[in-house]
């Protein structure tokens, strides 16, 4: 059975390399976390892609769609989407790999795709996937910009255990 999701899962999305230091290394253990950071598990994300997912939903719910600047240096985690959220030996954590489907369905909902043309074979699968990934990267980028600004404004807020949850809770700008 032809399956867009299966193709989508094999991809590795990018992010603006500027946020590696500004956001990822501040809020996740990506790039080697200090012991101090490791101790505050729960307040921060254990992997880079977890923060990527978070930033995506933040961007999605806040409708912050910002394409990556063409000249921006791009970076990724070298982990394909299909491996995101797999438990794979992590104690104290649950498998949340199903999140991949929800990301995909959200992108399908938000991306202009002529599904009839796709079914007729008038547009290539690869083009559709490319659009989805662009959408993915753009919402995430919007989320990352929002996080960066928040962090610069009030870094101490991020020490609160529920702060990242609060940000999601108050981000329902869809209706």
């Amino acid at each position: 059975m032809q399956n867009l999701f299966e193709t989508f899962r094999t991809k590795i999305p990018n992010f603006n390399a500027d946020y590696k230091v500004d956001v990822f290394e501040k809020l996740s253990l990506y790039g080697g976390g200090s012991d101090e950071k490791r101790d505050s598990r729960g307040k921060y994300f254990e992997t880079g892609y977890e923060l990527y997912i978070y930033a995506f939903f933040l961007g999605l719910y806040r409708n912050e769609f910002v394409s990556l600047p063409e000249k921006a240096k791009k970076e990724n985690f070298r982990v394909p989407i299909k491996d995101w959220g797999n438990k794979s030996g992590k104690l104290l954590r649950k498998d949340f790999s199903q999140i991949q489907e929800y990301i995909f369905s959200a992108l399908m909902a938000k991306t202009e795709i002529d599904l009839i043309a796709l079914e007729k074979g008038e547009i290539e699968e690869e083009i559709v996937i490319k659009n989805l990934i662009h959408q993915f990267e753009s919402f995430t980028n919007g989320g990352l910009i929002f996080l960066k600004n928040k962090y610069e404004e009030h870094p101490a807020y991020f020490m609160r255990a529920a702060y990242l949850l609060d940000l999601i809770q108050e981000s329902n700008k869809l209706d």
Partner: protein
Amino acid sequence: MIIKKVTIENFLCYYGIKEFQFSKGLNIILGENGEGKTKFFDAIEWLLNTSNTSNESALISQKALSEASAGESFQVSVKLTCEHEDETVYITRQFRVSKLNVEKSETTKAILDGIKESRTGERDIVDGKQWLDIVFPPEIRRYSMFKGESSLNILKQDASLLNLINLFSDARSYDKYASKIEFLREEAEKEVSENTRINTKKKSEFENLEKQITLAQLKKSQLEEQLDRLEQNTNTTIDLVKEAEKFVVNANALESINKRIDILVDRKQKNDAKIDENYTTSLLDDFWILMHFESIHNEFSKKIQAAEIAKRQIQQEFDISKGETKGRRILQAKLINNSSPLPIGVPNKATMEEMLNDEICKVCNREAKVGTEAYQYMENNLKQFLISLEPEKNVEEDEVLFKNNYLRSLVNMSTNHDTSILRFRSIISEIKEKFEFNKSRDEDSNRFKDQIDNEKLERTKILGNSSLGEERLLDVIKNYNQWQTDIINANRSKVTLDYQYKEASESLESKIEQRDKIGEQSANSYLIKKRDLLKDIEKIFKETKERKFDEFLKKLEDKSNEILAKINVDAFLGKIIFIKKRSASNHTGINVELVQSDGTPFISPNQSLETSMHIAVLFAISDLAAGKKLEEYPLIFDAPTSSFGESKTSTFLNLLHNNTNQKILLLKDFIIKNDDNKLSIKKEFDSVKRNKAFWVRLERPFDNGKLSTINTLVSEI
């Protein structure tokens, strides 16, 4: 070794020559405070501690000095006459004092003389220091002389008890071999390594492993050091806590407060463990991040549904239009009276072509000129036949509208997600519940914290009622709670370090195994067998030594409890237990504890009970050493039982009397001051079994303010 006589000359309060003739068994020296008991002890200590050479002038009897004329000289000495292996040995430490004038005197340096006298009476001058060490070895001396009750606790340091046990248990005999075998095994391992390095094809792998082993050994020993350090620090802190608790008047109240604090701390920890504030993790692990997802799902679902409907409609229209063409063809091929046509290909292709060529239908034998209906009919039949010869597939391809079917999996996904809508809706209330749960646990935690603080305040008050001086007490109170916290933290760190140590050990073992495996494939088999044999022997030695040690420890425990029961007859007893501690780094230590009948330790045993325990352990060691027919040594105690009370002291002394080892006890009990201020020995002392007894008392009258009037008299009772 038996001390037969102690002669003290012009030493501190002992003016002139004073002798104590001792016998085997129990010797008791009675005396009021300040009348010469401790100075007797000091005299023996001065004789034995030859390294202490400073300030001899402070040891001179002031009475002797004052009574000497200017220009006169006299001797200050302490002489030990002892029996050692059928010989009598005299050890004398002495110096001379020359009085120059009323204010000034000179002393010579103290020297140690020795004389050895055989059974036949022959006397030889010997090296005093050497013979002192022979008759009374320094390592024994440390455990032979005890000044006051607190000094009995030589078991406080792990090393002391360990030394004693090592001294007397059979385990000691294995030591000299153990180090040799360890050396030989290491050499054999080196030989195997060298041989492997030369012969193996996996040279680089082997060398790499050897490097890793060196690093792993280093890591292991660093962890060992850390563990030992942590253990030492913890033990010191535990001792400080125990020490502080000793000064507390109401020990029982303290014990119950400590128990309540333990329970509250435990409850608080369990409560804290329930507080799960990993909200960020829950965003993903519990899919909380999908809290606003319902509208997005609906958008997705509508989009897919719309596309699916559109696709079906297009397909339907396409099918209809395809069906019309097909229908037209069918209509054209219809025969008169709706009869079924002949099968395609009848007549065959050649016949059809012939009939068209001749413009005659040879089936019905009629003319069929070009342009006529009959000619067209024949021509159509031929066309149909030719089409039928073309492959079916090509026909189908032409007719497919949708090449792809991505929608089917999308529809499936959308349908599956429909069932998640309820889940999305419940997330907000789930988060709310979680917050409420945590809030309520937080409140519980704060309540526990308040209760703990109150208990600690109460504990501080109890500590405040202690017998300790104010300044020191403030220090103790300030530190007490911190020490308790330190102990908890140290125990936590120990768990982590133990785990790391275990990991490091396992990693080292596995690397050695890998290296040995290469070695076994490459090295000379004789060398391997030799190494393995030495490894086995080393293991046997270690295990046997360990077993002998354990056996001795068990005997010691039994004996100690036997003695403790005798000392504390009719009194509350408890049980002494010896706990062998093996730290992760494999260092053995011994803890001696007094436990209640249910096995729980006394938090703060009273001094009398503690002294009983220490004496019981000391005598048990002494008994076991005697039982092994080793040389016996005297035990000298200065006021070991000040916390006992007279009746318990009597019981204790009678018990000592049953034991034939020589003991010299200095006691302040059994002395009574009469109405006219005269001292005398109580009648009760008559019932105390002993081998010898002396009474030391100051010659009266004397002037409290003048040392030159002080002279201790010694009389045998």
